[in-house]
């Protein structure tokens, strides 16, 4: 077991989610930065889809109650490790062995927003529809992680990892967008406007959607109503105020605002690491 000493702003159990249940109104949920979750699991020798902790910002602190191997991926920033209260060495993106009583603490990220902590064996929490992920919108899966929680560790480990350090993901650039499916609902030149503008991530962003601020995107006919249609993660939904919302893994399964474009799948992980105040640009695929 591993004990939660501090959570930071939000810590959740996530795996690769529960895709495929959209027809029942159940969204995919799961790690926002799927590549980081997969990497964390690989570093400790778990199957890639094992349950990890997804920590927002800094402040998560864990204490090992038994010897465990962990790895931290996702955001970059300081990682503090303590054995008997004394600092000891250890890096992000490397497997780290904790002895009973050792503590691990995530500092404020210097780049990125979400960190993933994998524990060798995987977190053994109860599953809903085959997934241990917390869906913050639908209220499915385990409760958010709280101080004092003791998280049981499973036995999903496979071979010992052969990698001792993974490279940092190269920094971003613009995010690629496929136009549509409702780009024809917007005023002439709206797509040009979308890629020309600089967008700012607002503090109202979460796992449901990353809310962007910038010069509003105008609709062709503001009074026309779109019959509710299925959504995908990465969709840029444009509400009547013209400020797009990039839908995250805890998105609703359907929505009534037109989608001007959808992020290419490979760029979603980078979007997951956007912080409030970050500026971003889009380009058409």
């Amino acid at each position, binding site marked *: 077991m591993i004990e939660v000493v501090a959570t930071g702003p939000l810590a959740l159990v996530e795996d690769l989610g529960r895709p495929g249940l959209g027809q*029942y109104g159940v969204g995919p949920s799961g790690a926002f930065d799927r590549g980081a979750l997969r990497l964390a699991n690989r570093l400790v020798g778990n199957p890639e889809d094992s349950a990890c902790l997804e920590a927002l910002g800094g402040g998560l602190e864990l204490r090992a109650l038994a010897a465990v191997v962990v790895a931290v991926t996702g955001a970059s920033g300081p990682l503090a490790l303590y054995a008997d209260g004394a600092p000891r060495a250890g890096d992000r993106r490397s497997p780290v062995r904790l002895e009973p009583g050792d503590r691990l603490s995530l500092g404020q990220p210097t780049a990125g927003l979400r960190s993933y902590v994998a524990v060798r064996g995987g977190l053994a929490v109860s599953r809903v529809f085959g997934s241990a992920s917390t869906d913050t919108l639908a209220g499915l899966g385990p409760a958010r992680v709280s101080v004092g929680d003791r998280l049981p560790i499973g036995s999903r480990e496979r071979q010992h990892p052969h990698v001792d350090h993974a490279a940092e993901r190269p920094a971003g650039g613009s995010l690629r967008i496929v136009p549509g499916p409702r780009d024809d609902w917007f005023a002439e030149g709206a797509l040009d406007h979308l890629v020309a503008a600089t967008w700012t991530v607002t503090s109202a962003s979460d796992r449901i959607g990353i809310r962007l601020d910038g010069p509003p995107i105008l609709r062709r006919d503001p009074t026309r109503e779109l019959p509710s249609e299925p959504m995908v993660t990465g969709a840029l939904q444009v509400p009547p105020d013209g400020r797009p919302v990039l839908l995250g893994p805890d998105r609703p399964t*359907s929505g009534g605002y037109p989608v001007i474009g959808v992020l290419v799948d490979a760029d979603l992980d980078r979007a997951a690491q956007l912080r409030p105040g970050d500026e971003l640009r889009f380009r058409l695929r």
Partner: protein
Amino acid sequence: MTTPAVSRIALCGDRALLLDCADPPAVADAIRLQVIDGVVEVVPGARTVLVRHDAAADTGRLTRLLAAVAPAERTPDAATTVTIPVRYDGPDLADVAELAGISREAVVALHQASDLEVAFCGFSPGFAYLRGLDPRLHVPRLSTPRTRVPAGSVAVADVWSAVYPRESPGGWRLLGTTTTVLWDERLDPPALLTPGTRVRFVAEAT
């Protein structure tokens, strides 16, 4: 020549296509029955069907196959009709009657007489949008949604009727309540009402 079931196909990112069609649950069923390589999920909406595919799928081939999808004619099947007993004591019954310009009794009668079918699920897990509501009961949503609507609330809004499967916030107008369980995470499927299911509301004897 019959009109094609799918009138338009648009890209929805690089992992999905969005199909415009008149009968989403029937088109979704037809796509599932065809078992197309690379298709990982089929989700109906009000006037659309989303087809998610894997990275390896050939979208050109997929588009051609989906454009030719022809749903079978369906006849109402008693086996797939769910009857839901309702106690018509909802807080918005009087308002709906006033908006519709009919009596409360007429609202209750028209709601029971409507031949309803699940078009799609959305909003929250197991929340089924029922189409086929008598046009006289087409009323706007509340201007201020309730912060808490109890599970089992039977409601109408716009062209739809629905039952809240779990407690949630909501802006639909509440006609009554049912004790029928619409959502159970232990069951497969977890939702009682899935796209294509026919629904009848029946007043509970009081």
